[in-house]
């Protein structure tokens, strides 16, 4: 009888310990979150994508715009164009752990697939700065074409891709060397890549350009007014039309816009949470984000953020 009681106590103790470990590990695993740069009031709003509410507001440098998330390393890099620096946020604690001085305005940010390097476009001096994530400092700089605007990294070919807003081109770099420069529509800003394709949003042409990275052929598709950025998910493309306050939905198989849906005022940037099947759009004009279901493209909720929400780049922690 005593033995039996002992057994029960041991089992209870073990299960208690296991539940503690379970709780502890879950507690330290971050919820899916979106990080919204609010250029108008120098903050980042952290939005819990399950609760669908702002859970924290982080003070960063002046006029934050560009962003990228390092999912494996639990870091968010925020570019402050007013203070010429980068705020690095630990996404487990949502606190700034480092400020990297650049002495130039960081416009857009991306990283390589293993997250060892972060690339930043230097809008004024036509460079791409390379930051070592381990060292948390700029280790190299590549000279690029005029007004580098959007930036992204293609995993399939190991290409670093940028748009040059004022020369209407998209440049492709491999191991820091320019390997091709292609004509896009007028004023290419946001750029996105997946698999064999890259996509640019051409602000003045009300169009997007699709570039085949295998044979370098290009195709232009008309969208709404003043498109700013583009993202693809499965067979669909999503484009923010800043002046129409809408998203163009593009069927990538037939290469055509199939419909437009309303957003908040002046939608700028967008990202998806793949597991939750969510599409999030930042609305600069209404200081908010719109969250849509990717299953039916219906609006789930519009959430107020700080002033002039932008988040140019990847902004969702997967």
């Amino acid at each position, binding site marked *: 009888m005593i033995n039996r009681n002992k057994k029960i106590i041991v089992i209870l103790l073990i299960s208690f310990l296991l539940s503690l470990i379970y709780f502890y590990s879950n507690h330290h695993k971050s919820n899916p979150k979106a990080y919204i740069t609010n250029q*108008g009031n120098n903050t980042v709003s952290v939005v819990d994508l399950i609760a669908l509410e702002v859970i924290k507001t982080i003070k960063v440098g002046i*006029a934050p715009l560009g962003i990228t998330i390092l999912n494996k390393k639990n870091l968010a890099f925020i570019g402050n164009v007013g203070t010429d620096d980068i705020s690095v946020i630990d996404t487990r604690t949502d606190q700034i752990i480092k400020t990297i001085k650049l002495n130039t*305005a960081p416009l857009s940010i991306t990283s390589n697939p293993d997250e060892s390097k972060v690339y930043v476009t230097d809008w*004024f001096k036509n460079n791409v700065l390379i930051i070592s994530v381990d060292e948390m400092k700029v280790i190299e700089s590549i000279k690029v074409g005029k007004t580098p605007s959007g930036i992204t990294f293609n995993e399939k070919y190991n290409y670093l891709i940028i748009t040059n807003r004022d020369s209407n081109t998209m440049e492709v770099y491999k191991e820091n060397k320019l390997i091709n420069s292609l004509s896009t529509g007028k004023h290419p800003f946001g750029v996105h890549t997946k698999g064999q394709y890259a996509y640019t949003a051409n602000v003045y042409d009300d169009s997007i350009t699709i570039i085949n990275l295998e044979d370098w052929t290009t195709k232009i598709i008309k969208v709404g007014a*003043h498109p700013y950025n583009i993202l693809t998910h499965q067979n669909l493309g999503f484009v923010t039309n800043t002046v129409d306050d809408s998203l163009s939905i593009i069927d990538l198989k037939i290469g055509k816009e199939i419909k437009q849906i309303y957003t908040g005022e002046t939608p700028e940037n967008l990202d998806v949470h793949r597991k939750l099947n969510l599409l999030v759009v930042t609305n600069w004009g209404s200081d908010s984000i719109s969250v849509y279901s990717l299953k039916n493209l219906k609006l789930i909720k519009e959430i107020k953020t700080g002033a002039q929400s932008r988040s140019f780049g990847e902004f969702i922690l997967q």
Partner: protein
Amino acid sequence: MRKFILALIALVFSMSVFAHGPTPQKVQESITVNIPPAKAWSVVKNFTDFNKIMKTRSFDDEIMKIKYEMLKKDGPFSDYNAYIIVKKGANDNESVIQWTARFYRTYKLNPPIPEGQDDATAVAAVKKIVEPGLVSLKKALQSK
């Protein structure tokens, strides 16, 4: 006095820091009128005073929103786009007319930014369109 000058220097310095970077500027002003939203919207939609400087890009009756773009470049700002929206006021007989403009300064290249082509100049110029614009709109609304 010395403190004041130091504060002024700090202010000017912080403003010039802020002027770096390609940042779109926003001017947003609103007025309240004692007219039901549907009626206010019918006036706002057909308000011709704006047509001298702006072109209607589109309007939406459902959400009572009209969008304008600048016809010709007419001030120290660029890429001007604006919209006016009519919203419900505190009661059924009250409306709020909100005007939002998005634009950039004229100088978009490397700092230093030439005088008169910076963000502050652009914001001041757009305020000179938006504020009197809303006043004349209010007059037109109240005469109905």
